């Protein structure tokens, strides 16, 4: 369904996303994971051409066989919201504060010509009901600040689903939600996927998400793919030391990603200060001379693809738990 090849997103000469390639299959629940600044959100945005002004995309993104990078803005606009829905984090600021929730959902239907006025409004209420919002008619009349955080996130999802897209990109949809709400939202994703055979790309830094739902996982570090593979493989046999570190923090169930930083000394490099060789090398316990000299490329290692000169072998997730 989606083939991404050698995608780069650059700000001037600086590449925030640097040669990322991956495929997403129809009906798949695909997870993109990485620290903030790893380029994961930019990758998600790049699919729809929604990156910040001043950035340029190179490479190739093919959605259902169409080259997205070559589509003019007008046609991209037709795809957005219609065929591909997107859900953002922090719905309080991601929703327009001065427009009623129902109208914001209906807008998607109206701009894509799938109904107007009353019909769109009725559909908005149905959608709210669909995402399990109690009293959807009242919520439709409410402004975003008048409803709870969890409801806002549900409303955001309803908005993304309004035109019945086949692909849903969810960019950190559970950040800033408390644990129970988070679980409910994730359950909603799973349910939607089941019932509508929706393809979902979930972008997160939240390891807790991984284990529960995803089919495959893509780990990003400093603009590069560190590792990509089926969720079980990655979970149980991470090849990349960075993935391992993520797993370590992820193993502590729902602990925030911040703890990764505690597991791995140092911090992710900024856009301007990327090290030579493997970008993870300054923080990597296994780093050797070649790691500091040449950049590793993705290669198959034990069921997944990893970009590492010295992949971890024989590491079992279960050992960690033990």
């Amino acid at each position, binding site marked *: 369904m989606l083939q991404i090849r050698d995608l780069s997103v650059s700000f001037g000469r600086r590449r925030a996303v640097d040669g990322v390639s991956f495929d997403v299959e129809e009906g798949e629940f695909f997870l993109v994971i990485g620290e903030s600044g790893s380029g994961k959100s930019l990758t998600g945005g790049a699919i*729809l051409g*929604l990156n910040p002004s001043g950035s340029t995309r190179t490479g190739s993104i093919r959605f259902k066989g169409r080259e997205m990078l070559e589509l003019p803005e007008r046609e991209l*606009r*037709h*795809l*957005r*919201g*219609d065929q591909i*829905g*997107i859900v*953002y984090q*922090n719905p309080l*600021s*991601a*929703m*327009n*504060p*001065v*427009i009623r929730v129902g109208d914001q959902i209906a*807008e*998607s239907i109206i*701009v*894509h010509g799938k109904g107007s006025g009353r019909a769109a409004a009725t559909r908005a209420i149905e959608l709210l009901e669909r995402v399990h919002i109690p009293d959807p008619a009242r919520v439709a009349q409410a*402004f975003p*600040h*008048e409803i709870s955080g969890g409801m806002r996130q549900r409303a*955001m999802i309803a*908005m*993304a689903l*309004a035109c019945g897209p086949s692909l849903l990109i969810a960019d950190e949809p559970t950040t800033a939600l408390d644990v129970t709400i988070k679980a409910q939202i994730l359950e909603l994703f799973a349910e939607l996927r089941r019932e509508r055979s929706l393809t979902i790309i979930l972008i997160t830094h939240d390891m807790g998400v991984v284990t529960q739902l995803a089919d495959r996982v893509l780990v990003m570090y400093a603009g590069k793919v560190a590792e990509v593979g089926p969720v079980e493989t990655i979970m149980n046999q991470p090849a990349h030391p960075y993935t391992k570190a993520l797993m370590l923090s992820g193993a502590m169930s729902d602990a925030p990603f911040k703890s990764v930083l505690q597991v791995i000394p140092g911090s992710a490099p900024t856009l301007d200060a990327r090290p030579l060789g493997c970008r993870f090398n300054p923080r990597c316990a296994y780093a050797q001379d070649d790691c500091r000299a040449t950049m590793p490329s993705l290669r198959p290692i034990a069921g997944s693809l990893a970009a590492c000169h010295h992949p971890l072998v024989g590491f079992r997730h279960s050992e960690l738990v033990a």
Partner: protein
Amino acid sequence: MTVFLLRRVGWAILVLFVVATLTFVLSHVVPADPAAFLAGQNATADTVARIRAEYGLDQPLLIQYLSYLRGLLHGDFGISLRTGRPVSEDLASFLPATLELLFFSFAIYVATSLFLAIIAAKRPGGRLDSGIRLFTMLGSGMPVFWLGMALQFLFFYKLGLLPLGGRFPLRAIAPPTVTGFLLVDTLLAGQPGAFLSALSCLILPSAAIVLNLLAVGTRMSRAALISESGKQYVRTARGKGVGPRRILYRHVLRNAMTPILASTSIQFGYMISWVILVEVIFDWPGIGLYAYQSFQVFDYAPVVALALVSTAVFSIINVLLDILYPIIDPRMRSLRA
């Protein structure tokens, strides 16, 4: 909401009281005898004394102040020494002209500054943005009175396109007075030609006012638009497939309106001040020209009336804005409650 409004109105009354007292006290700091002026060049001392008594100018200051305040409560601003009529009557004939110029300029100001801000905010730092910045800055640096004369010179004297001054072209026939606003009255009378005549008189004075205020207005609106354009809900809207124009008008502009309106309130204060200057230059028969002519001959009651009336207009506008905020931004509703 009602309580809030009542508080605002009470506050406006307090402000008016302060203005009334301040202007009264100050106007009596410098002793001058308007009666002498009033009596005329060849009047005898007796006549001057008689006129002084007629206008109560021989009373103790406190008595004058109290009767002045009592008068104000009844809408009585005293008598203009220059026109010999009650100031309230004069105001009734001059105020509509001022309000018409004020509101017309205000509308043009809001439209133009938004228009320029929208263009400028499209590509911040771009050539158009810099051009608008330079243009508006030049406008704001030009003193209004100077700008007004420059416009007269260009559009009347050199090009002969627009009238020199006044509110209605000399040789045109004015419509019957209904609202006092010529733009409205001409339309009510079904005289589109007269409407355009009245409009032609409004163009230069309001241009002088608007050009002066445009810099600040555009800058504020531009900043608000840029800041709103960077907000996440814009990204959401784009993700929904909403086009740039709809994003601008339905999303960004509505959110930017709150900060824009807040700056408008301050700008409106300036606008009132500039209207007075412009009236003098363009012989616009409003309260500014009225007060100007009056203080030239030491007739002070109209000046006080001008201060009070413009404060009242300003207060009303501020209260209206306060009512408008929660309509535009629902978040304010819960704040007010």
